[in-house]
């Protein structure tokens, strides 16, 4: 029987509860958002005792469906003040699903200044005091817990989360004992506010999740995997170059944020491209195509090694490479990989922090291109929590305010990632309207705008069709985020007519339901509206669905400007 695990950190008590009927058919983002909306007062302080941290595996997590192991984490975000859902790969979702845990809800704040760890297993949750690992980086936590408890699933925060930095993330152990992250929105600070250093997830004694119709499931799962492999994006591009494949593409289209969003092209793009990343990794004996969870057939991740062949980092994403490489003008994959490792270990979002560094450079804190300066900043300031480290760790918006910078790329105080919205207007609509603050994954219009992937061509430099495109994508993305599927499944879903029916069949065969593809659309709409209602009750209005003023200035070299009116953007919510 599925259940809810609830942990009250104020009373240090745990309970196991039945799943209320309205939540029974939900999972992932649809569930975390439903729980946060129902149980968290929208106006509460995100780091106070009334906020709750909710984890929910996707509806297909724990099954043999490929790429289905994403875990959603939800809360009110201390960075944005909005509702937040951030999902990650790794192994935790599969363990929770096999334990039959629909959601893990953590509420309250303990008295005193002690720290705790949570042990989750088939009996429930145990809260244990923790001293040894406090102050430690995420890699040390993973290693120590492996010695202590064996190869369990782990969720952990680094020093950034302990210090409640607004860009702190929650890390998830991956299949090789490395990390993936619930990156965005400062959920690591929420976990830190509850004084939880780690959550160990022990799936011992569990078996695969039960299926209502296993023959039907296997058949549909096969069709689904085939659709992923047949699509050029998920079958060839991502496995070959990882997400860094986008560097040269976006640069060619003039939308590559450079020098804190001053230019749209970077002269050293080849130094940080996916093509160069792949060559470098192969030359040095690393792994150019690595999966972060068992059952991944796309393998967008990679293992980056240094010149001597020693491990530096895995899961080096386009976003991090671009924002440090071009936007902060570092242009050196070795420095970027080292910075990525440090950010993972400190437990801080590599998007928010990298954009914050670009803003800090604009504010004169350090020169553009100063890679060694960035590494020093991370090692000495971020990790130790010096005043400068805390400033950077509180995100791009706050850095901009403190240093008097006017070009501050944030929406709802969350950093805009590595696509300039002037040259790729569809993603600008997503940045503006997402219930999460600026977030490219909420409705990835880039693929459609630049490549015609995922639903036909929409000219990136024109306004026509962008609002409708972003709306369509944001609704569909809720489906993926709720099923526990990698975002990349969106590409075959849009382009291959066998993909969505196979997903629906898997879901029906898993739960013994008779859902239709329309049901998914409904789930997307309901979830987005629930999230928006939370934000409105927290004080957000349409005026917050806007891009910063500086995007009205022309972007070199194309001269593109952000020219949407408020009224045009607000049409997004007409559904």
């Amino acid at each position, binding site marked *: 029987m599925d259940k809810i695990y609830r942990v009250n950190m104020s009373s240090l008590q745990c309970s196991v509860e039945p799943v209320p009927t309205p939540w029974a058919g939900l999972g992932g983002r649809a569930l975390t958002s439903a729980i946060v909306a129902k149980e968290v007062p929208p106006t509460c302080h995100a780091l106070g005792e009334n906020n709750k941290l909710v984890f929910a595996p996707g509806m297909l997590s724990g099954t043999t469906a490929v790429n289905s192991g994403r875990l959603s984490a939800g809360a009110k975000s201390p960075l944005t003040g909005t509702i937040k859902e951030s999902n990650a790969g790794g192994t935790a979702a599969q363990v929770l699903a096999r334990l039959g845990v629909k959601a893990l809800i953590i509420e309250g704040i303990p008295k005193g200044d002690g720290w705790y760890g949570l042990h989750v297993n088939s009996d429930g949750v145990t809260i244990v005091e923790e001293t040894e690992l406090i102050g430690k980086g995420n890699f040390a936590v993973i290693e120590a817990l492996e010695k202590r408890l064996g190869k369990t699933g782990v969720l952990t925060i680094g020093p950034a989360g302990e210090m409640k930095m607004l860009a702190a993330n929650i890390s998830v152990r991956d299949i090789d004992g490395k990390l993936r992250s619930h990156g965005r929105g400062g959920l690591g600070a929420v976990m830190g506010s509850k004084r939880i250093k780690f959550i160990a997830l022990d799936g011992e004694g569990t078996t695969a999740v039960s299926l209502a119709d296993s023959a039907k499931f296997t058949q549909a799962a096969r069709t689904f995997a085939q659709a992923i492999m047949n699509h*050029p994006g998920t079958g060839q591009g991502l496995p070959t170059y990882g*997400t860094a*494949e986008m560097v040269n593409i976006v640069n060619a289209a003039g939308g590559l944020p450079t020098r804190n969003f001053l230019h749209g092209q970077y002269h050293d793009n080849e130094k940080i491209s*996916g093509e160069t990343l792949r060559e470098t990794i192969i030359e040095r004996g690393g792994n150019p195509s690595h999966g972060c969870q068992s059952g991944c057939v796309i393998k967008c991740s990679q293992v980056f090694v240094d010149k001597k062949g020693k491990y530096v980092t895995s899961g080096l*994403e386009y976003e991090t490479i671009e924002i440090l490489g071009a936007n902060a003008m570092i242009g050196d994959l070795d420095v970027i990989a080292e910075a990525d490792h440090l950010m993972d270990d400190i437990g801080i979002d590599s998007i928010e922090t990298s954009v914050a560094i670009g803003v800090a450079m604009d504010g004169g804190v350090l020169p553009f291109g100063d890679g060694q300066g960035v590494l020093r900043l991370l090692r000495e300031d971020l990790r130790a929590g010096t005043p400068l480290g805390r400033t950077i760790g509180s995100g791009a918006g706050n850095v901009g305010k403190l240093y008097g910078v006017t070009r501050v790329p944030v929406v709802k105080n969350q950093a805009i990632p590595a696509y300039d919205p002037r040259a790729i207007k569809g993603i600008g609509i997503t940045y503006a309207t997402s219930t999460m603050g600026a977030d490219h994954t909420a409705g990835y219009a880039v693929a459609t705008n630049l490549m015609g992937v995922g639903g036909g061509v929409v000219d990136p430099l024109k306004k026509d069709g962008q609002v409708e495109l972003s709306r369509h994508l944001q609704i569909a993305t809720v489906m993926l985020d709720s099923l526990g599927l990698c975002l990349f499944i969106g590409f075959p879903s849009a382009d291959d007519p066998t993909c969505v029916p196979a997903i629906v069949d898997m879901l029906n065969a898993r739960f013994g339901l008779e859902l239709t593809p329309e049901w998914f659309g409904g789930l997307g709409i309901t979830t987005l509206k629930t999230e928006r209602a939370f934000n409105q009750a927290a004080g957000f209005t349409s005026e917050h669905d806007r891009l910063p003023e500086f995007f009205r200035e022309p972007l070199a070299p194309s001269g593109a400007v952000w020219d949407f009116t408020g009224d045009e953007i607000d049409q997004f919510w007409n559904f």
Partner: protein
Amino acid sequence: MIEVTVNLLATFRTDRFKEEQQQVPEGTTVGAVVSGMGITEREVGMALVNGRHAPMAHPLTHGDVLHLAPWIAGG
């Protein structure tokens, strides 16, 4: 004859080149350059002329920069 710069991205580079200056007859289309390299039009995910999307029938002019990428989905 006119001169155009052809930039290949991702797997299009394999056994070809990253960037090349090509002399082509005036009025040559994007599609003609593509097939001249043994690439089928269906394989092309993105064709940009001077940073703007261009159809296969688009005629090139002297000094144009052409970027060609296979179907790539994103990051």
